């Protein structure tokens, strides 16, 4: 479980996170949603320690992630898997080497066990015969799946995904969403997904946090998402004609 308590982050005069808080439960799909530029990526990057926060607390299973040494931070980070928006696969490495990379750095496994683990992870994301290919030889959807395979290679306790289905067609996006959901439930991971995709919200959102101008505006689940009564959230949800029709149908 990850607790975020009143974190603030500013760049010069611009406040990008304003007392942002959230409670992200283990074994659930926790979604942070919001418009572009609302601060959701910054919230995730602060939770990962890629940006320092000006104030506030971040706790990983009760362990402070802000006021600790770099060494202790590194230890917690080894329990984290991350799927970046563009995949962030290492261009110069093959798919096998990409997934093997965290294993080589931290697992202490021998090469045979590492290859077994790589193949297991690739099978888990439904990819076969791609070990020797380079990231540039794969489609966007396949790259995302490799990124997920790399993220789960070290059996993480926490999985972060930054817009995992951006740039994908609706059917591939659904495949990625379902894959993340299966992995979260199967391995009991605390998954935090950053998205503005409404299909994802309705499909996989166990716990949803709506953020606007760096501030949490609403928190709930997909059952009360469409009927929340929150003005800002409704403006976000029903901005498209399709959802306006859906609202009138409800």
């Amino acid at each position, binding site marked *: 479980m990850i607790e975020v308590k009143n974190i603030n982050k500013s760049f010069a005069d611009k406040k990008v996170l304003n007392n942002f808080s959230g409670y992200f439960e283990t074994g659930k799909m926790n979604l942070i949603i919001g418009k572009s530029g609302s601060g959701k990526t910054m919230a995730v990057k602060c939770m990962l320690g*890629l940006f320092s926060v000006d104030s506030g607390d971040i706790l990983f299973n009760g362990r402070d992630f802000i006021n600790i040494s770099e060494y202790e931070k590194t230890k917690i*980070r080894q329990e984290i898997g*991350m799927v*970046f928006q563009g995949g*962030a696969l290492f261009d110069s490495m093959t798919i096998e080497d990409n997934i093997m*990379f965290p294993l080589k750095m931290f697992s202490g496994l021998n090469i045979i066990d590492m290859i077994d683990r790589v193949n297991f992870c690739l099978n888990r994301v439904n990819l076969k015969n791609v070990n020797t290919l380079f990231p540039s030889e794969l489609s966007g959807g396949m790259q995302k799946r490799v990124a997920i395979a790399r993220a789960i290679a070290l059996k993480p306790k926490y999985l972060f995904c930054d817009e995992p289905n951006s740039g994908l067609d609706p059917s591939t996006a659904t495949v990625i969403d379902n894959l993340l959901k299966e992995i979260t439930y199967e391995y009991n991971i605390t998954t935090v997904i950053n998205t503005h995709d409404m299909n994802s919200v309705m499909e996989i959102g166990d716990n949803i946090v709506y953020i606007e101008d760096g501030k949490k505006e609403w928190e709930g689940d997909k059952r009360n998402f469409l009927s929340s009564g929150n003005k800002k959230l409704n403006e976000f949800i029903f901005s498209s004609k399709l959802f306006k029709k859906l609202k009138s149908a409800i």
Partner: protein
Amino acid sequence: MEFFVTTGRYILFLKNVFFRLESRRVYFPKIIQEIHELGMSSIGFVSFISIFVGAVVTLQVAYNLENPLLPTYLIGLSSRDSLVLEFSPTMISLVLAGKIGSNIASSLGTMRVTEQIDALEVMGINSASYLVLPKIIAVMFINPFLIILSIALGLVGGWLAGNITGICPTEDFLVGVQYEFIPFNLAYSLLKTIIFGFIITSVCAFFGYTTKGGALEVGQSSTKGVVYTSILIIIFNYFITSLLLS
């Protein structure tokens, strides 16, 4: 003001590179890989330039020594000293700043904008040290060999030019090349090369690593890295020379 801010950031960047290291077994294969990618791949380029630089230096020295009172072997001697003291270490380092430096800045810049560096950080890896330290060690190690090769091929170029044009026979050229050779000159030359190797890799890596934005900014970082490196090489060349030779 910006100069001081950039210098401060560069020093903090170096602190990240040299402290909080990963385990040694991680660096060794990467250093070998970088020696191959940054050093060995430059051999052809360095060789080509060195032969022609050596030839031009010999022709220019011969042009300036057109005096019947001066012995012809002075052409070989002057060419040797010019190549050892200045042309090979400084000129080749400036050329390598363009080749290796832009490669380092653009590759790190691309890794930054495609979030590959963030991916390393999230894994708990000190990305600055993991990515940059092997490059610094590799270039500081391989540069002296490249410069020795450059000096040797420069002399070959000079000998060829002297022979083809008939301005300096082989015997005289060889006497000149061996005449009153001071080993310290070579040590000075190699020391410069090692320092220039550090400047090339660390400065270009700094600009690449701190890239913000997209493809356009990667190009700008690469250009900045090469320009700053070239300026620093010229400045350090003066200071090292005045410290060691004056």
